[in-house]
């Protein structure tokens, strides 16, 4: 699910809705992302249409932890429904969002 670490960034590509059924795997995948070596961490949510409240908490926790470790945490490829959820919870106040992975990489490596 993550790309190789030859790049200066690490991408977690998550391609299904996050519910109670797969929340533990989502938590584990985010932990791996934060522990990875690169200082640019990208969460690609293409094809995700729903995130439950626990998933939102984990994403916030990852963003806060990344900041503590001087890493950039970026989210990209949001479906309209998920973009709306993030807007409601106002995560744009502390997380950077981009439409495409290319834009996220460009921002991260700038």
């Amino acid at each position, binding site marked *: 699910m993550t790309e190789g670490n030859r790049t200066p960034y690490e991408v977690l590509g998550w391609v299904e809705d996050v519910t109670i059924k797969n929340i533990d795997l989502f938590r584990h995948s985010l932990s791996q992302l934060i522990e990875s070596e690169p200082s640019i961490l990208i969460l690609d949510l293409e094809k995700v249409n729903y995130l439950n*409240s626990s998933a939102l*908490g984990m994403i916030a926790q990852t963003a*806060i932890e990344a900041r503590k470790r001087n890493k950039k945490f970026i989210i990209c490829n949001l479906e*309209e429904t998920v973009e709306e959820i993030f807007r409601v*919870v106002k*995560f744009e*106040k502390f997380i950077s969002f981009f439409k495409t992975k290319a834009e996220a990489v460009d921002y991260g490596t700038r």
Partner: protein
Amino acid sequence: MELDNSYLKLSKEIFANILEGFMITDNHHRILDVNASFTRITGFSREEVIGENPRILKSGQHGPEFYKNILRSIGEDGKWVGEIWNCKKNGEFYLQWQSIVSIKDEQSGKKYFVSVFTDITEQKKYEHQLVKDLQLAKTLQESLAPQAILEDKISISAFYWPSRDIGGDMYAWFPIDQNRYGVILVDVMGSGVSASLISMSLRALLRGIITRLVEPIAVMTELNIQMRRMFSSSSPILYYCTAIYLLVDTSQGRIEYVNAGHPAGIFLNGNEEVHLLEQGMVPVGLMSDPEIEKEVQFYEQAGRMILYTDGWVDSAGSTFKVHHERIAQVLRENNHLSHETFVEFLQKNVVNRPTIDDISVVALTLKL
């Protein structure tokens, strides 16, 4: 050949030592073999049951139709899985979780039935106790719901539909003085017992926080501090809640609010204009020192507002944008209704039953 022998030996070891009860019967329903766990669970020794029909374990708790269904399922699908009450040698009933599969020996053409089962009686008792505890917690939660306010200048009432037995939604309102009221709606992350415990803990603090600090930024700052103190400082999981807090001044027709990552409040003012109450901060408990903005809305002659938790959007299978448009229309079309009739209308005709998340709706009717 060596591999076959060692594999056979291993299979025998597994059969003898596995913690689940094991029973093999032939096509005439005669028991051919059982393992040690069978004896431990049922009390019958191997010698006592070999050649017997499994009905020696029958408890009499199930009718003939139940057993016919088992045989039909095995006949049609080759397997049956489910719960069954059986009787031990000492006459004690116990509940077992059992799977039965039919296996055909290709060489001899003979058919066998293999049953694997565990005793789940204690687990079932625990589940029943848990259900009783949840019902008690639900009663407690309901007892904390505030009484409706129905006055000339302000009416406030609410309804709550949990998705499970209990959940993390919570609302409260408090008169501050003759003209001012503090109103809050909170949705704790997650659902079930943990969310409910957190919301009840917050509920215990709210009266003090709101009546002492009154002003939206001060209330939300304190709520954030308390949430982090109670649940985030010593836990690996980041607990948070979304919330919207309003301070309504009925003498000025003025509403100050802070929205902490919560679905927008939908406000119809006296000029038929609908405003979304979205300004504020990130959810409560996420950050130690969040930036907080408040906004002020006014109503001239009258106003009506709906606050809600996102379970309503989930149950409607809608987006927030579409949902807000729909609620705005409902507010406009039913503005002539009295407060109580309007809330009844919402419950009967507008709000769907919850699916994956609780639904709370708080309605305010304001007159200047």
